[in-house]
């Protein structure tokens, strides 16, 4: 079995079996010829089509990334500017709000002051009125004291003495007593 196959191999290709295939120079021409054709074609396709295509893709992506980065930077700047503007507006609004509040507070204070003064004036007036009325009433009452005294005195004198005394005399006498 082994012998027959070995014999078959030797008869099949005596030259090929005798020489180690990589050192069989009879195949060199063919290998070089086809290597030149295939590698030459490959190099041509590579330099004309394949490498430029991939380079183009990579470049496009690079450009796109750079462009996107630029846009992102621009948007960032815009956002920063918007933020600054917002801050400024906020500060302004805060200042305005403070001003308005101050104004309102001042106005309220002034109003309250005016009201207070009005009320105080009213109260003062009413007090003065009341005082004057009290004085009047007192005066009147004091004046009536004389009359009542005179009347009472006249009554007493009449009961004691039994004779009428004139009003003028009584008034005169009371005035004498009181002074």
């Amino acid at each position: 079995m082994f012998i027959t196959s070995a014999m078959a191999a030797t008869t099949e290709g005596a030259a090929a079996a005798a020489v180690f295939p990589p050192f069989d120079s009879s195949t060199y021409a063919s290998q070089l010829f086809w290597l030149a054709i295939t590698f030459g074609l490959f190099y041509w396709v590579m330099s004309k089509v394949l490498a430029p295509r991939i380079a183009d893709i990579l470049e496009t992506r690079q450009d796109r990334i750079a462009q996107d980065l630029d846009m992102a930077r621009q948007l960032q700047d815009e956002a920063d500017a918007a933020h600054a503007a917002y801050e400024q507006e906020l500060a302004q609004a805060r200042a305005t709000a403070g001003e308005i509040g101050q104004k309102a507070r001042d106005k309220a204070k002034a109003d309250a002051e005016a009201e207070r003064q009005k009320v105080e004036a009213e109260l003062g007036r009413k007090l003065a009125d009341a005082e004057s009325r009290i004085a009047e009433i007192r005066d009147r009452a004091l004046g009536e004291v004389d009359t009542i005294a005179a009347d009472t005195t006249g009554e007493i004198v009449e009961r004691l003495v039994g004779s009428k005394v004139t009003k003028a005399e009584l008034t005169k006498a009371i005035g004498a007593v009181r002074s």
Partner: protein
Amino acid sequence: MAQDPIKQFEINTIVPLQNVAGLDLSFTNSSLFMVATVATASAFLYFGSANRGLVPSRLQSMAEMSYEFVASMLRDAAGSEGMRFFPFVFSIFMFVLFANLFGMVPYFFTVTSHIIVTFALALLVIGTVIVYGFMRHGLKFLGLFVPEGVPMAVVPLVVAIEVISFLSRPISLSVRLFANMLAGHTALKVFAGFVVSMTSLGALGVIGSVLPLIMVIAMTALEFLVSFLQAYVFAVLTCMYLNDAVHPNH
């Protein structure tokens, strides 16, 4: 015979084109996989860039990643002036990477496991360095071999060393890739062969074959890494050599 670890490197004619100007230019399995490598790599990059999405799809992301991987590699090594070689370096990287990865599929041929292919690619790189170096800098390009600040007495020695190291570059560049692919695939095949021959030895052999099977699995993972790593190394060294063409004065 199926276990012969060398058989996978044999070149079989598919379409005979013998005696074209005295040369055998037959379309072989190697040619087929070169075409497949180029077609797949092109399709990957073409469809990966078809949508031109601002937000990449998975395929597009992978295409962009490989592009930027090689672009940064070249820019780091040779500066922005070196970027004119970008299609060249990218072609080499993708070609080697896809050829290596194709080789990882069982029953597939590994284009880069043949010294003549890797040597041709290395010569292409060095040829580009020499042609561009002289075009760009004229005879000043030879200053590459004379490092600055070396005493006159030792200049001949240094120049000799520099020239030898320069000339050995295509050899080291091509042998590194070729040997890695060859050795890796051969070792994989050998261990896989162990699995097959041990399982034919009965129950004990089946149990014993677990060890080489684990080895094959581990080595397959390693070979995927090597496939990528060797493509990367080839591309990085290409970038560094191109840097010499762009900036010959170290």
